[in-house]
């Protein structure tokens, strides 16, 4: 398969996010995630560090194998793909924010004991992760199937 640097970069980011935050949400959905916001902060710092290290290492690896492509500027097709994929990410994030807002407003009226800071933080984080996955997924789709 013939992939450009930016396509490989999108695939790396997609897999890295899926791996790190997938790991976190696996524990959250099993009920084994953080039990307080300070504990969640610890998780977040660890996940961001792992994500950055993984992304940097893999990006260096693909840049070493093809430095010319890594240094090439983004062309018009890639810019169009980025615009379209950002739109997908935005829509998912907006839906997630509305869902979170609904959870806060309706939850505080009908079941206030179930609305916790930790739950809201997890819902927002999930929205952000889903938006990023949608963004990179849309990029890969357009790189493969056309714009």
């Amino acid at each position, binding site marked *: 398969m013939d992939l450009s640097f930016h396509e490989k970069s999108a695939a790396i980011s997609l897999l890295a996010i899926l791996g790190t935050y997938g790991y976190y949400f696996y524990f959250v959905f099993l009920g084994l995630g953080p039990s307080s916001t300070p504990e969640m902060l610890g998780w977040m710092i660890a996940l961001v560090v792992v994500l950055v290290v993984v992304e940097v290492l893999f990006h260096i690896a693909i840049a070493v194998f093809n430095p010319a492509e890594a240094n*090439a500027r983004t062309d018009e*097709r*890639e810019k169009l793909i980025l615009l379209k994929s950002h739109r997908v990410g935005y829509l998912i994030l907006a839906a997630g924010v509305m869902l979170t807002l609904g959870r806060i407003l309706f939850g505080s009226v009908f079941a206030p004991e179930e609305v916790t800071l930790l739950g809201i933080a997890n819902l927002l984080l999930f929205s952000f992760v889903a938006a990023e996955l949608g963004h990179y997924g849309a990029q890969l789709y357009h790189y493969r199937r056309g*714009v």
Partner: protein
Amino acid sequence: MAKLPISNCIRRLRFDAGEMTQKALAEKLGVTRQTVIAIEAGKYSPSLEVAFRIAEVFGVDIGQVFEYQPASAVAAGDQEP
């Protein structure tokens, strides 16, 4: 992804230009090789600027590189076995 209404003969023009590679054409146009591949395969319609530059590279008129097929013709072509 729906078939684009613009077809091209860049593959033949590259052949006529001494088997110019996609990479060489991409470098002349200032785009990635994957973008040239996508244009040739009809998966991407380039901007007017790049379309003119392609014609310039091969020394032909833009109409000799790209051909517009009305939506009805594309739909009919899709239904053919």
